[in-house]
């Protein structure tokens, strides 16, 4: 991730990525007890659908367990206070604890009420001491709030949560080994990492004789993916402690959408550009304040009569204030001037509302730039400029005006180059390395065409390609908008099992054509020139 510790300059005490989990046991029961203002030693159980979902330590001592029916639980502990499950209550009573922890560590992710994780960065360790010290301090903080918590530290979030349930600290790099001897049921014990489906999986695995997490982790991922559900693949990743996303620092995501009521309404390009510039600066200031970068941006303009014009642009490199301003200007420029393209249309009335929405933002620390070579942002200035002008042409003519050629698999000259709209994934239609029997050898025609012609034999009868892949007669004339005589021909070469074929003819005016025979008609496919 993007934290500074990944550079490896800090000491061995705080490796690339450590996660601290703080778990308050039986949180729903604690919250219910706190809400009813009960003493901590009063047994409490929280019921959902007539079954116990959580119970306090005192109730557990009397023999109450999760999953028991109401009647069983009450029989085990007649003095027990019962409460219905209430997610709102859980969250409400957990909030003071989160606030208290945030006082000490600002980056907190709450997985569910009663469970929170904290990314242990090098900075944090520098300020608060090592992992042990931070864990102790935070459990003290939670204790001061009147709740009890246990802490666990590991490389991965899932391992850290399981470690917190045992109050252990997993050695760096030892996640998988630590998880291996645990019973398979632990995979489903934490609802934040898997729901009902995970419980079923665990049940199934146990019936298959897989009793520990290590036994499940030992299977090849391919076998798991082909035999179980997608959730099993996720569980397998957890069991192997495969690096997953780290805890998101608990920054509050503000609404970054920017709206501007145009008064007076805008109908000129320069006025729109001016407003766009101001909005871009404002947006960029907000993004910078949250230290995020925008990689996808939606610009929407609404006219007085309610006509909307929306365009989303994606950028590989983060958009700067200038970029945002340019995107806004190009889009409004293209629209207000009626689009010089074929399918352009002008707005029906002046623009009344402008809206800029950064639909995709990423943590600016998570951006990686390569130092040189064909890196992701391709920061050499010419590539940047080329992309900018192509985006501008898209603004003028519409999104699908700019095409990028990609070599693709196919037989005909036009099949072998796929034109991909700029901004879309440039993947070929078909695999080019496949054999493609019937593909003509190089050179290919320089000009593509799509014109129907008639190919006639010396008697004036149309030439066909027989089922055995031969001409019905020798071609002598090609009739299009005029008649040419054929000087030389070659083919036909069948291109598939559907009766299509290709042939080359040389006309009397020094033009060689590539002809394609399909459904009993000849089509000029290309001109060799």
């Amino acid at each position, binding site marked *: 991730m993007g934290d500074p510790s990944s550079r490896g300059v800090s000491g061995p005490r705080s490796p690339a990525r450590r996660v601290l989990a703080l778990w308050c046991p039986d949180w729903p029961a604690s919250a219910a007890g706190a809400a009813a203002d009960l003493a901590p030693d009063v047994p409490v159980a929280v019921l959902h659908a007539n079954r116990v979902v959580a119970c306090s330590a005192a109730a557990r001592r009397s023999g109450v367990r999760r999953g028991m029916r109401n009647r069983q639980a009450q029989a085990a502990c007649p003095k027990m206070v019962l409460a219905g499950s209430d997610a709102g209550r859980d969250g409400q009573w957990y909030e003071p604890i989160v606030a208290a922890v945030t006082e000490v560590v600002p980056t907190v992710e709450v997985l569910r009420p009663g469970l929170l994780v904290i990314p242990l960065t090098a900075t944090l360790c520098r300020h608060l001491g090592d992992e042990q010290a931070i864990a102790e301090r935070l459990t003290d903080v939670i204790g001061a709030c009147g709740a009890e918590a246990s802490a666990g530290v590991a490389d991965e979030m899932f391992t850290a949560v399981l470690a917190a349930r045992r109050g252990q600290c997993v050695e760096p790099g030892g996640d998988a080994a630590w998880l291996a001897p645990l019973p398979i049921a632990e995979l489903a014990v934490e609802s934040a990492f898997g729901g009902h489906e995970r419980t079923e999986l665990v049940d199934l695995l146990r019936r298959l004789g897989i009793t520990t997490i290590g036994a499940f982790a030992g299977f090849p991922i391919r076998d798991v993916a082909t035999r179980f559900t997608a959730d099993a693949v996720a569980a397998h990743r957890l069991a192997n402690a495969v690096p997953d996303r780290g805890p998101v620092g608990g920054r509050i995501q503000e609404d970054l959408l920017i709206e501007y009521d145009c008064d007076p309404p805008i109908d000129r390009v320069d006025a729109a550009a001016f407003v766009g510039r101001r909005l871009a600066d404002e947006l960029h200031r907000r993004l910078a304040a949250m230290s995020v970068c925008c990689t996808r941006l939606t610009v929407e303009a609404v006219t007085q009569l309610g006509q909307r014009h929306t365009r989303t642009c994606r950028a590989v490199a983060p958009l700067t204030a200038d970029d945002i301003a340019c995107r806004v200007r190009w889009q409004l420029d293209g629209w207000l001037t009626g689009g010089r393209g*074929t399918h352009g249309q002008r707005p029906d009335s002046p623009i009344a509302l402008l809206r800029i929405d950064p639909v995709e933002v990423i943590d600016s620390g998570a951006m990686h730039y390569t130092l040189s070579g064909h890196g992701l942002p391709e920061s050499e200035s010419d590539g940047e400029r080329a992309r900018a002008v192509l985006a501008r042409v898209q603004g003028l003519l519409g999104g699908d005006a700019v095409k990028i050629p990609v070599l693709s698999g196919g037989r005909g000259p036009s099949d072998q180059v796929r034109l991909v709209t700029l901004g879309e994934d440039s993947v070929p239609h078909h695999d080019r390395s496949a054999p493609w029997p019937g593909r003509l050898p190089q050179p290919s*025609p320089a000009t593509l065409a799509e014109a129907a012609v008639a190919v006639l034999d010396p008697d004036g009868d149309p030439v066909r390609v027989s089922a055995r892949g031969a001409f019905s007669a020798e071609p002598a004339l090609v009739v299009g908008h005029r008649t040419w005589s054929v000087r*030389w*021909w070659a083919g036909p070469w069948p291109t598939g099992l559907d009766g299509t074929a290709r042939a080359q003819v040389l006309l009397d005016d*020094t033009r060689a054509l590539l002809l394609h025979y399909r459904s009993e008609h000849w089509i000029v496919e290309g*001109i060799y020139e």
Partner: protein
Amino acid sequence: MGDRPTVAGQGTAGRRSDADHESRIAQLRRQLAVMSGQPDRLSAERPDVSVIPVPVALEPLFPAGGLATGAVLACDGARSVLLSLIASASASGRRVGIVGMPRLCLLSAAELGADLSRIATVPYPGADPVEVASVLLDGMDVVVLNLAGASVPPSRAKVLMGRLRKRSSTLIVTGGQWPGVRTSIDAEVTGYRNSLSHSISGSGSGRSGMGRIGGMRLRVSAVGRGRCRSGVDVELVADGFGASRRVGMVRTDGYRSVAADPVLEVAN
């Protein structure tokens, strides 16, 4: 870095300053020649002009040895020549924008060695292709513009060429009239090559039904400002089999003036 010679770098710095000195003298000599009116402008201009590579077979047609940046080139006739120019420019890392040519077969360019990832096309530029080309000139090194029979007024061309010089890109126009073209290239097909018999087919030499079109012979001629028409005969040949098959452009004759050259092989 090189301005301040360090103690360790004395030797290199000394040599470099010698070279600087010589090139400076040469430049001053050229300036003197130009100012005194000698017809040496070509050699005076040449060193400052950076060029975009062209296929080796076509180099004699370009006085600077390649496409001059900041200039307009007209390229008409057989499309293979245009495609080979696109191919060599993109293969050398230049970015190429193609405006208004939906029928251009980019597969053929790829066979000639083009790097398709550096090519962007605007197949249908709408009513005003010149406008689109002028936008593309800001960011692309080579822009190919199909005028579709239109002729551009000089006032408009002047604005665009100013931008061209500033950005040091190259504009290749085709299918129309552009005022102020520096070099005008025309190409015609003079014959085809049969992949089997290795001879130019047609005129009875190739039997129908045998082989395939394995290449073509082109006559490429160029005329420019202040120079007479010159031409080369080039041949587009495909060699090899399977994945190693390559298309290349080779010259088949010397470099001579077309006027002095009797037409040897008429179109079949």
